[in-house]
């Protein structure tokens, strides 16, 4: 692979968020970033679950999820004290970007990465995340943790670049808090917190700039945790004012978050200047940070609760001569950073990485070769020796056993408690990683183990219920709900939502809807609940109500991809195709790897006549999930329309061939619309019918009904459809939408004047025809709309409307159109013979 960039500078801004940045860019307050944005590629970057920084930054540096890289939380068991310690890099189970660069003889400087302690022996300089942390008073000896700097010989030089919070002056504080002089610092310690965050950021920055100026490097990674820390301490004071914040606090601290971003932009300016023009620059955050009405007012008392303030989208901005300029990137994940940077260096990423190369950002097409893995290759990767590396969970278990056996002194009640808590959290985090990776089986195993460890922690049964929902094991979900109902402190509305989802899964939509509505009375602010409500309305084909609740969800959170997707479906079914496309675009803009949203985008574009774009959307669906064969059915339809016949057509045909069970011709319409006559026509024309003799001819249909009894049971039993393969079967309009999607259908839908239909039905039932039943007519009209919706959304359905009266009086014209629709399979001369105008007895005068 060709090396594209001479050098790469990777800047980590923990928790940076476009929602805060965009207004600052607009008002010219972040000029350095603005320059990069205007000349580079930018986009949202999807975080991973759980959104805990040490896990995420290790995923960024390895391209792997936490179950592979082994960093599972903030703290871990300490084999020396028997208690806990901040997470160490020795618990990482795989190689990082800089390890791989090391193997290729490239020089890296890594500053402050979380976790990176003890510093690894790389070909370059590593300064660990312990380096800048300060816990001593100003003027006192400020020791540096052993292992903070590699090579150790650099320690003395770099040590003096640390800044103590109390070294800062009012000149550093006033830009954040202009009214700082009014604060009584004996009582209010928030200025001290601000100084600590700022000093630590400045320490990291001083070291990074020193290394950039004074060492040779190919790769430079510098991580600032300060935007996240400003956020956790001061986002509650960020405008707009939150109702639970006092006017006084708001006035004092409202500028801190903005000040933090501006300070980072100033530091960025310096980094860009030192990097030089030929360096690729990558700015990334691990997650965002809620800055608007979605900021939680209070955090629950659970471990890692501050992570609730993290928004699922971080920032990505990249600039280099080989990359596109002023472009947006969609669908990037934290896992993609390492494979993409390796590609910039002309080094193959590995197949065992969970991320992919962001090929779309490069100006030219790039060939990406993947090697199997970097893990088993012998060589100098600049990692710690094997004996220092630890498996966090295994060493925790071993440590506990040694304590139990008395080989290690009991760390004391508090330490043991802390150790047990840490082990519990590491396992819980791992369970979330498994769940978000779709490994429900492993998740259940871990959660069941955790529940045995701590029966009072309700996160475990709640997450178990989610797993059982995925496995459609509704009995177990019910069991958990009953268990949770018996516990104190459980919000019953949440259980109603859970029960509602389980009922939806069992197709008991009305019951689910009742529960969602009940929960909504107590929890009206939760977008996720509105989405469940919307989904229930969609299932019940109450599209306008679905539209309303999805809009409500978006009023609460306009960056909810699921709400946009639901809105898109509601618009589609209401025939608002442009709105549907726009909503689907919003959904995929927020969450690119969302095949269902791409699918509905394709459907909307198809209905707008934008066939080429629809094709692109359906192709993406298949790329993301090849099991969504309906996308291939659409693509075949589009290829046929455009006269395309290439290798892709063959591929789609193969996919569809394995999926489709047969081809059925259906005669449909409202009762008394001429469906029996159409059955006769097709029979006379030479087609085979699927009928039985259960319903006999009578005065209303003297030539017979041509029905098949099993059709009435279509909603429950579809097994008989195989018998209809290659034949014609009569199915009333109301049942069409229950047809499964794994057959191709050609539907001949009979239309007749509604008055004639109703009067004919009334006569048949022996009822008076003096009063026209308006309510029935209106229900039938709605049914016809539903048929059209079904036709639009199912790519396996071809439909022709045949007008009953026209068929009687313009026979040739109608039958020619019909024959064309059926691929010229009927004998028109024979077919026309069975049309009997004498049977047209109920006429509109």
């Amino acid at each position: 692979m060709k090396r594209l960039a001479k050098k790469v500078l990777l800047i980590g801004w923990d928790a940076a968020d476009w929602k805060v940045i965009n207004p600052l860019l607009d008002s010219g307050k972040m000029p350095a970033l603005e320059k990069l944005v205007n000349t580079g590629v930018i986009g949202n970057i999807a975080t991973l679950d759980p959104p805990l920084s040490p896990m995420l930054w290790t995923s960024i540096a390895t391209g792997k999820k936490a179950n592979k890289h082994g960093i599972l939380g903030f703290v871990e068991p300490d084999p020396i004290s028997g208690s806990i310690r901040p997470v160490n890099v020795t618990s990482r189970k795989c190689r990082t970007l800089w390890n791989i660069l090391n193997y290729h003889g490239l020089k890296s400087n890594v500053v402050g990465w979380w976790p990176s302690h003890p510093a690894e022996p790389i070909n370059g300089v590593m300064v660990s995340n312990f380096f800048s942390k300060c816990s001593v008073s100003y003027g006192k000896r400020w020791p540096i943790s052993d292992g903070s700097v590699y090579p150790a010989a650099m320690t003395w030089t770099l040590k003096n670049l640390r800044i103590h919070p109390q070294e800062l002056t009012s000149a550093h504080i006033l830009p954040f808090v202009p009214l700082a002089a009014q604060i009584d610092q004996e009582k209010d310690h928030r200025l001290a917190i601000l100084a600590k965050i700022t000093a630590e950021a400045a320490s990291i920055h001083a070291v990074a700039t020193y290394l950039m100026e004074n060492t040779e490097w190919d790769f430079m990674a510098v991580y600032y945790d300060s935007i996240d820390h400003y956020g956790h301490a001061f986002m509650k004071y960020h405008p707009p004012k939150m109702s639970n914040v006092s006017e006084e606090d708001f006035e004092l601290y409202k500028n801190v978050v903005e000040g933090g971003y501006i300070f980072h932009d100033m530091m960025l300016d310096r980094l860009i200047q030192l990097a030089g023009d030929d360096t690729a620059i990558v700015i990334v955050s691990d997650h965002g940070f809620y800055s608007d009405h979605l900021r939680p007012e209070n955090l629950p008392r659970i471990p890692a609760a501050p992570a609730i303030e993290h928004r699922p989208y971080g920032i990505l901005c990249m600039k280099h001569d080989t990359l596109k300029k002023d472009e947006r990137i969609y669908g990037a994940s934290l896992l993609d950073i390492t494979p993409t940077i390796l590609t910039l260096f002309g080094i193959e990423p590995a197949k065992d990485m969970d991320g992919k190369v962001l090929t779309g950002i490069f100006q030219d097409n790039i060939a990406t070769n993947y090697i199997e893995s970097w893990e088993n290759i012998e060589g100098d990767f600049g990692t710690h020796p094997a004996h220092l590396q630890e498996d966090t969970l295994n060493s925790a278990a071993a440590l506990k056993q040694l304590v139990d056996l008395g080989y290690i002194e009991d760390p004391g009640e508090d330490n043991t408690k802390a150790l047990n808590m840490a082990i519990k959290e590491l396992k819980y985090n791992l369970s979330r990683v498994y769940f978000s990776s779709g490994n429900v089986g492993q998740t259940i195993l871990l959660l069941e183990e955790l529940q045995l460890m701590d029966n009072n922690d309700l996160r475990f049964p709640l997450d178990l219920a989610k797993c059982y929902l995925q496995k459609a094991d509704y009995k177990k979900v019910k069991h958990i709900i009953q268990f949770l109902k018996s516990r104190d402190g459980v919000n019953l509305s949440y259980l109603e939502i859970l029960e509602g989802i389980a009922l939806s899964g069992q197709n008991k939509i009305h019951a689910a809807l009742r529960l969602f509505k009940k929960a909504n009375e107590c929890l009206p602010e939760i977008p996720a609940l509105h989405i469940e409500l919307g989904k229930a309305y969609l299932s019940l084909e109450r599209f306008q109500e679905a539209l309303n609740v999805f809009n409500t969800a978006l009023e609460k959170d306009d960056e909810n991809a699921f709400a946009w997707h639901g809105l898109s479906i509601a618009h589609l079914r209401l025939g608002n195709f442009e709105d549907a496309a726009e909503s689907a675009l919003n959904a995929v803009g927020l969450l690119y790897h969302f095949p269902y949203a791409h699918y509905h985008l394709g459907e909307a574009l198809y209905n707008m006549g934008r066939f080429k774009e629809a094709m692109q959307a359906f192709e993406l669906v298949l790329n993301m999930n090849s099991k969504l064969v309906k996308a291939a059915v659409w693509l075949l339809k589009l290829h046929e329309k455009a006269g395309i016949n290439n290798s892709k057509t063959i591929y789609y045909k193969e996919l569809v061939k394995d999926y489709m069970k047969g081809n059925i011709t259906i005669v449909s319409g409202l009762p008394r619309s001429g469906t029996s006559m159409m059955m006769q026509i097709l029979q006379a024309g030479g087609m085979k019918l699927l009928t039985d003799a259960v319903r006999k001819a009578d005065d209303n249909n003297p030539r017979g009904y041509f029905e098949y009894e099993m059709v009435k049971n279509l909603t429950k039993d579809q097994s008989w459809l195989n018998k209809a393969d290659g034949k014609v079967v009569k199915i009333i309009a109301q049942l069409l939408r229950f047809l499964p999607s794994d057959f191709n259908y050609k539907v001949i839908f009979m239309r007749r004047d509604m008055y004639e239909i109703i009067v004919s039905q009334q006569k048949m039932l022996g009822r008076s025809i003096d009063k026209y039943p308006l309510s029935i007519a209106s229900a039938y009209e709605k049914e016809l709309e539903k048929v059209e919706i079904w036709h639009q959304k199912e790519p396996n359905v071809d439909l022709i409307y045949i007008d009953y009266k026209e068929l009687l009086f313009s026979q040739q014209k109608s039958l020619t159109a019909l024959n064309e629709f059926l691929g010229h399979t009927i004998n028109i001369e024979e077919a026309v013979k069975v049309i009997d105008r004498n049977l047209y007895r109920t006429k509109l005068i």
Partner: protein
Amino acid sequence: MKVIKKNKQTEYIVQPEGSLGLLALGAVGLKAWRKLRFELNRQQKCKEEEKQNK
């Protein structure tokens, strides 16, 4: 007050109380600020010593 060059085009003012701008310059800014403070402290001490000697 002292002036340091950030790059060829721009210069940066170093003041005794420091500034976020100086911190953003990184190692160079930090060192310049500390040097100025050290210098001013030294001068102050000299003045005080001179006063005492008088």
